[in-house]
């Protein structure tokens, strides 16, 4: 796609009056790079350029972002009500240096919402995001968890149309825990970048049920900037027919004694595609790290595809690290074992797949409500 088509978005930079010069520079960066495509991305993700083309013709519009079940002391507000410092505003761009979808969001986005969780609440907070239009939407959500706070979020992304380029930033305080149950059932084109900053003894745990109907990409970057922090991201990927589900997880260990687990369990039928790329990045002076990354994919048709690329950059010997990938069709011996206990073949297959799902999201809970009927 020619970057010329994006030039009209420069107008949006002025919609939020702050930091205009810096945003212009970031937008210039974006114009230089354009959206990622097969050529410059050099891996097996879907081609964002061609998929997004029809949505770039129109203006940028807002998405609907609803937060429910928030207890009194925790607050949700617009950026306009309480401006961010320049450092906080450009934190994602400074972190990435060059990530064009993030640059586009930060430079041109005019919908910034902030959720401050200052007190532990026992009931989960619900966040619903929907974009319904034939255009692009660039919302940014900043979730701040204060020190010593525990919170759960049930997060539903159900984009019904258009191209949603969403940036979510999680700042997890010292000794705090955040548990996310994420459902992605988007019918539009979705690129969601999650940027997680973990302080000392903090914990981020995401269970993700990804069932895109169009194509979707989740990018999760966890930054262990505090010692003894941990991050877990486990995705069940069940993309629809003719749909791509791209999952990228990057665990960056800047401090010692941190842990990460990242993985995907995919069920792929017809011509659906799941691509999982995971990185464990352990810096030179960092000790006592533990990291796991793995994926397992069931291919239910000859046309289904799973791509897996586990990567490690480890510059220290004091590390325990595991990685693995298993991709294939269902095991006929397992099916026979279950059929020999009285289950019809179809039910035996569903039980195996249900086990595959349950190993990540459990036999009960919020995410199971969204599963296709055969796996409930």
């Amino acid at each position, binding site marked *: 796609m020619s970057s010329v088509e994006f030039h009209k978005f420069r107008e949006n930079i002025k919609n939020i009056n702050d930091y205009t010069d810096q945003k212009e520079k970031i937008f210039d960066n974006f114009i230089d790079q354009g959206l990622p495509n097969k050529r410059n991305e050099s891996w097996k993700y879907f081609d964002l350029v061609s998929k997004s083309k029809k949505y770039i013709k129109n203006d940028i519009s807002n998405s609907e972002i609803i937060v429910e079940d928030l207890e009194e002391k925790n607050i949700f507000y617009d950026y306009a009500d309480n401006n961010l410092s320049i450092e906080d505003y450009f934190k994602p761009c400074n972190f990435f240096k060059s990530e064009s979808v993030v640059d586009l969001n930060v430079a041109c986005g005019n919908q910034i919402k902030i959720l401050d969780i200052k007190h532990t609440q026992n009931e989960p907070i619900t966040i619903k995001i929907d974009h319904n239009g034939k255009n692009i939407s660039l919302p940014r959500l900043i979730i701040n968890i204060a020190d010593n706070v525990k919170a759960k979020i049930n997060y539903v992304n159900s984009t019904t149309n258009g191209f949603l380029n969403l940036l979510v930033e999680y700042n997890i305080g010292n000794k705090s825990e955040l548990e996310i149950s994420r459902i992605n059932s988007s019918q539009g084109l979705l690129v969601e970048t999650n940027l997680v900053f973990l302080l000392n003894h903090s914990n981020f745990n995401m269970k993700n049920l990804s069932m895109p109907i169009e194509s979707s990409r989740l990018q999760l970057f966890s930054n262990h900037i505090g010692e003894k922090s941990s991050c877990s991201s486990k995705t069940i990927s069940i993309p629809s027919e003719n749909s791509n589900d791209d999952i990228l997880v990057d665990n960056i260990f800047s401090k010692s004694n941190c842990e990460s687990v990242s993985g995907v369990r995919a069920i792929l039928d017809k011509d659906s595609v799941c691509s999982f790329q995971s990185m464990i990045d352990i810096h030179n002076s960092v000790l006592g790290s533990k990291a796991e990354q793995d994926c397992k994919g069931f291919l239910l048709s000859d046309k289904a595809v799973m791509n897996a690329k586990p990567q490690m950059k480890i510059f220290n010997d004091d590390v325990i690290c595991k990685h693995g990938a298993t991709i294939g069709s269902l*095991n006929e011996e397992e099916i026979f074992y279950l059929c020999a*206990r*009285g*289950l019809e073949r179809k039910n035996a297959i569903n*039980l195996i797949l249900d086990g*595959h799902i349950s190993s990540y999201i459990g036999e009960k809970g919020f995410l199971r409500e969204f599963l296709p009927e055969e796996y409930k």
Partner: protein
Amino acid sequence: MSGNLLEINDLHVNAGDKEILKGLNLSIPFNEIHAIMGPNGSGKSVLSNVLSGNEDYKVTSGQIIFKNKNITELKPNEISNLGLFMAFQYPLEIPGVTIMNFLKTIHEANRRANGLEVLGPSDFLKYVREKAEILGINDEVLKRQLNVGFSGGEKKRNETLQLLVLDPVLTILDETDSGLDVDALDIVSDGIVGMKNEENSFLVITHYKKLLDKLSPSKVHILVDGRIVESGGPDLADKIENKGFESFN
């Protein structure tokens, strides 16, 4: 009950192009325990798989009559729901499926297939706990994933739990004793002996006499090269123990 629960007539079975069972005949009446012994590669496990409907093996001629019904062409689930249970030599691991969920699923499938009402959650829990107690299996084990990370003995014990829960009329024990320590062998064999009644029977496939000593079979059959070459009483197992299979070749 009178008559034969299982009748196998002149059964020929191929695995790929190779004939494994070459005219096997076997009858098992109700309320009896029969044992099959044989050297490696004689076709013992193929027989148990064919009886369970495994489509990897092709029946080229002969027939299998179970409960007066020809089951030669039936699917594994249909055979299972008629009341035939095979305890696997190598039970499969099913990640993510808890034993309790699995037992509930197969018990419900069996009840529905036989037109019986499905037990409610609390009745089923009570039913499973009763069966598990016989085998010394506690609630924590029931929460584990099916056979995942289990030792050989734990897997066999879990197979026996499934057997007790489904309460079949014919049970095939395919080398259930392999991998069991002495105590586990006692628990499993006691469980099986406790199940035996006038309406069921057992076919025990084994290499070892030890399990047969505990189960006291009515008949022992010697399977060599795809055929039953001799049948007799429990003393036949003693003969094998002392002299091996050489004299039957």
